[in-house]
């Protein structure tokens, strides 16, 4: 049932991506609402899949590549839904929904099964650490999506090109607000995740080695988030600087992840 629900969620995400892309290309806002509806259906199916995973395996899907990716995808899906609905930034789905679909596809390719990790990867502190860390990454991803759209919309407005991006993308102020929230929330969650992670590793056998890819990636992401927030301070185009920093930071974080994954121990517990 878990695989079936995960597959159905992926289909709904894929359909949402197609409809949202069509709504942008053909500039039909009604299609955008249909795309958001499909996406919401995908999130509901995804939640069902996660619940069924917990029922079947008796643990949260947080350890191993497949389970981690699907959980991260679900949290990103929730954040995307909030941005699209409450944040009144519907077109943000154009960037976020494909990312959610890609995470879900990656998780299904890797297999959503428990990895049989040691018992210490099951406790409450570990769960809290991972959920906070994932929330931090989700914050950065939302900031990236808003930042990318901000940069493109800023360029359209400055160069007086009034094409599809001008018409379809949200106003600069909305994108700036969503990006700022993403960065602030991401930074807060990741800071807490690092603190909880440090306490958790001290509890189980002292400090973790500094070459641990989880730690390298987590700390780098925290630095990126801090840098992007810092870029928003000072005079002048704070929104634009913050947007560029979010985009560049996200790319750095993803590139670092891929490098760590390629050069790291494939059997390790790294996401």
């Amino acid at each position, binding site marked *: 049932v878990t695989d079936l629900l995960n597959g159905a969620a992926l289909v709904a995400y894929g359909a949402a991506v197609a409809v949202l892309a069509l709504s942008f290309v053909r*500039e*039909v*806002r*009604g299609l955008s609402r249909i795309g958001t509806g499909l996406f919401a259906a995908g999130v509901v199916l995804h939640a069902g899949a996660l619940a069924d995973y917990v029922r079947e395996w008796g643990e949260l899907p947080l350890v191993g590549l497949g389970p981690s990716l699907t959980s991260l995808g679900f949290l990103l899906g929730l954040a995307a839904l909030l941005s699209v609905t409450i944040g009144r930034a519907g077109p943000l789905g154009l960037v976020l929904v494909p990312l959610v679909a890609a995470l879900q596809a990656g998780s299904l390719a890797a297999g959503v099964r428990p990895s049989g990790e040691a018992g210490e990867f099951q406790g409450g502190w570990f769960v809290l650490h991972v959920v906070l860390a994932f929330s931090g990454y989700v914050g950065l991803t939302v900031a990236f999506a808003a930042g990318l759209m901000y940069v493109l*919309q800023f360029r359209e*407005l*400055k160069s*007086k090109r*009034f094409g599809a991006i*001008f*018409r379809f993308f*949200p*106003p*600069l*102020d*909305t994108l700036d*607000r969503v990006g700022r929230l993403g960065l602030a929330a991401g930074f807060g969650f990741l800071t807490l995740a690092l603190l909880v992670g440090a306490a958790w590793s001290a509890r189980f056998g002292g400090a973790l080695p500094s070459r641990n890819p989880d730690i390298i990636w987590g700390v780098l992401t925290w630095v990126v988030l801090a840098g992007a927030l810092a870029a928003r301070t000072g*005079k*002048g*185009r704070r*929104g*634009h600087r913050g947007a560029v920093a979010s985009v560049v930071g996200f790319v750095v974080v993803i590139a670092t992840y891929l490098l760590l994954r390629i050069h790291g121990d494939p059997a390790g517990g790294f996401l």
Partner: protein
Amino acid sequence: MSLAILGLSHRTASIETRERVAFGRAEVPGVLASLLEDGAAAEAVVVSTCNRTEFCVSGGDERRAVQVLRALLSRRAGTTPDALDPQLYLRRDRDAARHLFRVAAGLESMVLGEPQIQGQVREAYAVAREIVGARGSAVGPVLNRAFQSALCVGGRVRSETGIGAGAASVATAAVELAKKIYGTLRGRRALVLGAGEMSEATLELLRGEGVRSTLVANRTFERAREVAERLGARAVRFEDAIVALREVDIVVASTAAPHPVLTWERVRQVLPDGAPRPLCILDLAVPRDVEPAVGELDNVFLYNVDDLQQVVGATLGRREAELPRAEAIVEESVEEFWAWYASLTVVPTIRDLRSSGDAVRRGELDRFLRRMPHLSDADRGQIEAMTRAMLNKLLHTPTVRLRQAAGNGRGTSTLDTVRYLFELDQPSPVAGGSPEDEALDTCEEY
């Protein structure tokens, strides 16, 4: 029964004529009441805006209605009916319904898809509904249905197509651009340079969008104060306006100066590091009020009239592209309306046919039952039910076919044949239930 629209619009008449024939809200009841009392029309609504004055009438004597309305409009236009005729148009029946639906959808508007006309049609309908003359309400079954359908069509066209999307005038394009930067304009501050008509129009739009504080600067301070007082803004001296650039979000420049009043040098002095937050400058003046180099400053978004025209042009282009979809909705609704409207004309014949058949049935039944006195009440009831069922079955197909014939335009000849064959020679009045009953509300209110 008939449906007709007589009037003139921006497509047929000059603005001078349109101004003269336009009816104020207070004049409408008197005009419609006299039209109804005269017997020229059984129902009437007048849609009068700056771009059109149209009388929509139904029932009564159509020829007389046209005469009365031609005389009325030409009198107001200060000319003779014959001289006004080239500017008038008359649409009948299906064409009249199509025209009304197109008007409500904004397809006949000067700016394609403009939204105000929907409210104006709604207002015209509401005003006419309030009028109750000696012969009843100004709006009966036909116009009730026609106007409710028209409002439905207008709503559908706007929600299902992009015909009303985007900015279609320089002033609305200016607001749309500002909103693409700030999202909502609620609480934003604006500075208006110049106190001409364009400045006033844009300022009004900005205030309508929630712009909180507005400064008006003009070469002559008195004129600035006059405009500021009228629009609830604050007047400032021109030299102080430059300094205010640090505090405002939006600048609307529309002076009559022959050279730029906001030069790069002057703005640079006030904003040496660029604007502290996004600054939207809308230069509506020709020749331009703002040097193009100002737009290169950090955080400054500068747009001139050509840029705004570009936005308007793109909007109108997209609206034109939506026209076929909008017209398909109109046509679909015209067919629906016409099917209903045509069915009204067959109702009296169907009613006569059924009552004639029933009279024959009852006569024959009475004769038969008189010859069979031994039958019990139960048996008599059974026989009566059987004869009624036979009559219903016999008349079912002719009834359906009559309605179909009316819907596809063959109603009159078929009706004549039926009336001849069944000797339904006594003319009967056209069906007309209560307006509310007949005007079925078949789609949600937009």
